[in-house]
């Protein structure tokens, strides 16, 4: 298993390299730049700006310098617990932002990432807490009205996208009923609507996958054996069927996490949440070279790492699979 993880990590290096290179050159070769939107600056200011961001160097040198700054140089993962600074922890330097000249991209990430992480974890929690019971219930009570209700709820979750559901929830529960704030990210109550909205789609998918997985498992011989030996229904479900029935859900968690990540762009816009997702979209509009690269690299690293975790868990849960 360690060999498998090692190989996957090695494989990730060229992938990250391609992502960094692609993003770096793509943003340089398109018209417009970080300073074109602003009022015309005096030539002197412009010269200073270009010098400050090393934009006068030949492009290949900028690229090489940037790659060097990104290369991990130390390994203090525990530094991450005191503020999420990748420079303290690994010596990864994303450089100063173009739009906020006094701040480095590392600082912005350390500032905004925890918000997005909290939103993502809560949403995933909602998705699992709602999706799993719905799916199990639908599978156990197959072809009954309970199944139809659960499956319809799941279909609704899939077909009402977050950017429709979110505003509708705000309209109903914040504006008309006044139970929540329409936007903001202050108290715990502000977490409710955004995580419900973002989690809904994945709750729906998880319910469908759980239902399918359980239906397949409940037909197996070993379940019949368990029943024949007089195991209670609850024991059959939670003790015998759970592990096999959850397999499709585990393999879905990789895409789900990636989806929650990108879904947060819209949710953070709807609910005015100061997270990294909104920062990323703004940075793209602002042509904030370093902030774009920093967030893209961070997201890509996250998704690659989480996919690896999901794959390992999958093999651990299903001995039929092997690390190849």
């Amino acid at each position: 298993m360690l060999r498998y993880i090692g190989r996957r990590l090695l494989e990730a290096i060229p992938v990250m390299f391609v992502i960094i290179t692609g993003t770096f050159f793509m943003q340089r070769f398109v018209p417009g730049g970080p300073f074109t939107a602003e009022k015309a600056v005096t030539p002197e200011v412009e010269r200073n700006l270009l010098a400050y961001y090393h934009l006068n160097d030949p492009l290949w040198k900028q690229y090489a310098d940037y790659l060097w700054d990104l290369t991990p140089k130390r390994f203090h993962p525990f530094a991450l617990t005191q503020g999420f600074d990748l420079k303290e922890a690994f010596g990864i330097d994303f450089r100063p932002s173009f739009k906020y000249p006094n701040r480095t991209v590392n600082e912005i990430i350390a500032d905004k990432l925890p918000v997005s992480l909290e939103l993502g974890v809560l949403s995933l929690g909602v998705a699992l807490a709602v999706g799993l019971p719905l799916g199990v219930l639908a599978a156990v009570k197959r072809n009954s009205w309970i199944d139809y209700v659960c499956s319809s709820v799941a279909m609704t979750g899939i077909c009402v996208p977050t950017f429709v559901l979110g505003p509708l929830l705000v309209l109903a529960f914040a504006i008309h009923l006044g139970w929540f704030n329409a936007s903001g990210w202050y108290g715990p109550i502000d977490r409710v609507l955004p995580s419900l909205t973002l989690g809904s789609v994945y709750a729906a998918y998880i319910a469908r996958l759980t239902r399918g997985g359980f239906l397949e498992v409940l037909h197996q011989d070993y379940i019949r054996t368990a029943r024949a030996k007089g195991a209670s229904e609850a024991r059959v479900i939670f003790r015998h069927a759970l592990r096999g029935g959850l397999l499709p859900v585990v393999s879905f968690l990789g895409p789900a996490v990636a989806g929650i990540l990108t879904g947060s762009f819209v949710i953070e816009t709807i609910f005015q949440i100061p997270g990294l997702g909104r920062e990323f979209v703004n940075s793209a509009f602002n042509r904030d070279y370093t902030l774009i690269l920093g967030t893209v690299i961070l997201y890509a690293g996250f998704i690659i790492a989480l996919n690896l975790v999901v794959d390992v868990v999958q093999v651990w849960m299903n001995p039929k699979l092997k690390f190849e």
Partner: protein
Amino acid sequence: MNSSPAPLSAPLPPPPAEPVELEAGHSLWSGAWHRLRKNLLALCGGVAVICLALLCAIGPIFAQSYEDQNLDLGAVGPNAAHWLGTDTLGRDLFARMLYGGRISLMVGLVATFVALVIGVSYGAIAGYVGGKVDAAMMRIVDILYALPFTIFVILLMVFFGRNIFLLFFAIGAVEWLTMARIVRGQVLSIKRMEFIEAARALGFGRRRIIFRHVIPNVLGPIIVYTTLTIPAVMLLEAFLSFLGLGVQPPMSSWGALIKDGADKMEEFWWLLVFPGGIFSLTLFSLNFLGDGLRDALDVRSAKD
């Protein structure tokens, strides 16, 4: 040991007095159609999709132009003259929804077509050629699967201006991966069948075998996943439009209308509810149709 072959000794049935009508054979398609007909939800979905598409295609001819403004009117709720109300610029919401639907459905169709062409060719070639080529090609797909593609579509749309043709390609380029995987799996099982052997024995080239003999036999799964890709594509387009990266004004798509409605929902609820409703209705219809087709054509799930 066996009992005597009774059927042989039994008297032959009397010859039919008049020619019986032969029962028509059940091809894959007629069987599938038979099963689909029994699935009420899928049928409703199919009919709804066709109605919506016709409405969007023909409706704008009769409705007011989506650009017609009546600034004195401003935003008014649903009434007799404007069935679904007007937006803040006094434009008829129903007309705008029909025009927006044209764009949304067109993006759905064209981008799905792009994904279809890339995915089917890629998957068929990988599956048919097999061996190291297949391993390498599928490894690339695995890696691409793990990438945050939506992020790249966002960057593309920002950097290269919000061009609708770029939108088609960017979305199509993201959505072909699942199709490639499915087609490859199917091709792997089909290429070992005798009729492929026969085609090879007849001396046909690879290209001809792949495109004339293999692909027609994986049409079932392709149709099912095309139907299910259309809502996924439309969702991505609406997502981009919601972020302000999709279709630009004065043109409109359902995603852009939803965005507009979400911004103004506090005073003008209909601007959010109707576009959101028609969009969700379309997604419902397409998903039910796709699920029904999957059951009817007996296609296994994509995860296999």
